[in-house]
């Protein structure tokens, strides 16, 4: 199972978008805790061993020791910078997690994680994927088979049956990590943590520049002085103006992806 070491209280500069993190307030997210708890239950129900993995600098080992204290059997840290992309993280984790029956992850981390590492991981491992699950059901007589439930739009739910090998990401609210025993905490302090290096990754495409959302400035004519203050604001913000009608485009996947990126650039989400 995978854990991500992330600052729970980062400082974000409102002007530059620069993020300052602090190792003291960094830990695993609630979703990763939930994934760890499901992993511990799987091992209790099916037998086997739980390997916990994270990617990051040495300070990230704190999340591994927490997992070891709670009952994980082995721990491995993929030595990567905290700025590694999801693809790089997944590649590093996949090399060490190959052969696992089930890989559990949190669905997204507190640092505005996109939840893409589990998807990359499933692709790397050629495993079935069940992403964003709320509840898992584990049958002791059917080891390796995970029955999962996840949300759909409109309040509906979807039930999945996943057979190993599978990558499952879970929401943080589905369960709560058990409290580690004192003996577990003391043993985890001294437990060995394997350190592995990440394989080199050739980017499949030029990296996108990602920055804080900055709507493009648009010049608009000054509203008429005859209007009330409220009406002038509405004119300036374009609130009542007619918007372009929604379009339904049917495109090839590559063209559709380009179109989406163009639109995100237009809106200012991508630089």
């Amino acid at each position, binding site marked *: 199972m995978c854990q991500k070491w992330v600052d729970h209280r980062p400082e974000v500069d409102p002007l530059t978008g620069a993020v300052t993190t602090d190792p*003291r*307030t960094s830990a695993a997210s609630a979703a990763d805790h939930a994934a760890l708890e499901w992993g511990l239950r799987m091992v209790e129900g099916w037998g086997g061993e739980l390997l916990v993995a994270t990617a990051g600098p040495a300070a990230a080992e704190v999340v591994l020791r927490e997992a070891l204290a709670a009952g994980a059997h082995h721990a491995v840290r993929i030595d990567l910078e905290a700025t590694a992309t999801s693809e790089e993280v997944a590649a590093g984790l996949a090399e060490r997690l190959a052969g696992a029956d089930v890989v559990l992850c949190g669905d997204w981390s507190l640092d505005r994680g996109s939840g893409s590492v589990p998807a990359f991981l499933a692709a790397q491992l050629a495993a079935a994927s069940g992403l964003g699950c709320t509840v898992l059901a584990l049958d002791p007589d059917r080891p390796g088979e995970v029955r999962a439930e996840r949300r759909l739009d409109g309040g509906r739910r979807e039930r999945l049956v996943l057979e190993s090998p599978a990558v499952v990401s879970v929401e943080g609210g589905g369960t709560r990590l058990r*409290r*580690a025993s*004192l003996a577990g*905490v003391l043993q985890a302090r001294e437990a060995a943590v394997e350190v592995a290096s990440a394989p080199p990754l050739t980017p499949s495409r030029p990296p996108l520049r990602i920055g804080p959302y900055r709507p493009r400035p648009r010049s608009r004519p000054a509203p008429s002085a005859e209007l009330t203050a409220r009406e002038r604001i509405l004119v300036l913000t374009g609130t009542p103006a007619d918007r372009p009608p929604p379009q339904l485009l049917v495109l090839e996947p590559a063209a559709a992806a380009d179109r989406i990126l163009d639109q995100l650039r237009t809106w200012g989400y991508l630089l």
Partner: protein
Amino acid sequence: MPETFQDFDAVVVGAGPAGSTAALVLARAGRRVALLERGPYPGSKNMYGGVVYGRVLDGLLPAWWDEVPAQRWVTRRSTMVLTPTQALSVDFRTQAWGSPPYNGCTTLRPDFDRWLAGKAEEAGAVLITSTTATGLLRQGTRTVGVRTDRPQGDLRAPVVVACDGVNSFLAKEAGLYHHPEPEHFTLGVKEVLGLPRHEVEKRFALQGDEGMDIEILGGTGPVPGGGFLYTNLDSIAVGVVLHLPALAASRRRPEDLIADLKAHPAIAPLVAGGDLKEFSAHLIPEGGYEAMPGVVADGLLVAGDAAGLCLAAGLWLEGVNFAIASGQAAAEAAIEALRSGDSSAAGLAGYRRRLEASFVLQDHKKLRRAPGLVLSERVQHQYPKALCDVVEALFTVDNPAPKRGALRAARAVGKNDGVRLRDLARDLYTMARTFG
């Protein structure tokens, strides 16, 4: 590491300055010591808006100033007396405090506590975070360890050092707090305001790593207490310390009182534009010598805030140095008791003797009248107003009337502000006995 994980020579509860010092001294003596901290890291639960006077570390950590995570070294100290529209400052500055061995520094407790706990860990103490001591393990009246909030969480040890802070549940459980009256506590409330480093230095006339400490009398409205303002590297800490029963009776919110202080004409320019980074509040044991609990029981020692060791004596506002010294004394007494195999109250009695022989209890004893004096109505409200009025009368040039002279001005102000000579003489006598 002990053979069975839960067995130690000593368990220290609380990784604040007292606890980490006790663990450091015990570990250096080769003792197996567990240092319990309820927060995720040492300092995460602590609040302190003051100056740390580190000379007490000279014997433990030589040249500690080279590595202590100081924000600024205090070279400028100001005592300010406020009325709603007046301010009188006594401002002192010396460059002697700006070089080794220094006098005091401002620091952020998450940095300072983590640094000191790190020293204890380096010496061999086992730091256990995110773990709360929920009670004492007892055999009859004897403490034999602590119970924690973790499954199978009992920790056994012949000596427990309770450094669990003000309002210590462990000391209370051991029956050491006989009269934990609210009047012996104040509530410290603090805001940390972010300001660019150059702005801090410009506003407080500082250079490099110089710092300033402002103690304020009379800035807390109807509630007896005091105010403070300290400079960090790129932030300032501003806050108030409020007498607990009076705060409850006033029905004022502490954040309103800080807002009033920040709006005072003498303070507002110093804090203007500060970006609120942190708001915190904490009880402070200000009862002094008379309100201290017992500090020794069978198998148990109490140190730091848990023992009420905080000096709030007007001129001197100190806590961390007392915590460090008491933690060291507790550890030395524990080592002596472990060596002799007697961790009963009699075996641990060396702790009290050490405290009495050091500045810890000598200062508290000498200044035992200070809390009552400083928090009295006259010192809080009447004298600040009279003092400011006298100075205003002295420096107001109202020609063509001739100058009145200081004594005449003081007599007029005293009469006007209702200061009775008999009270003043009595308070001056108490001050002389207390601070002299």
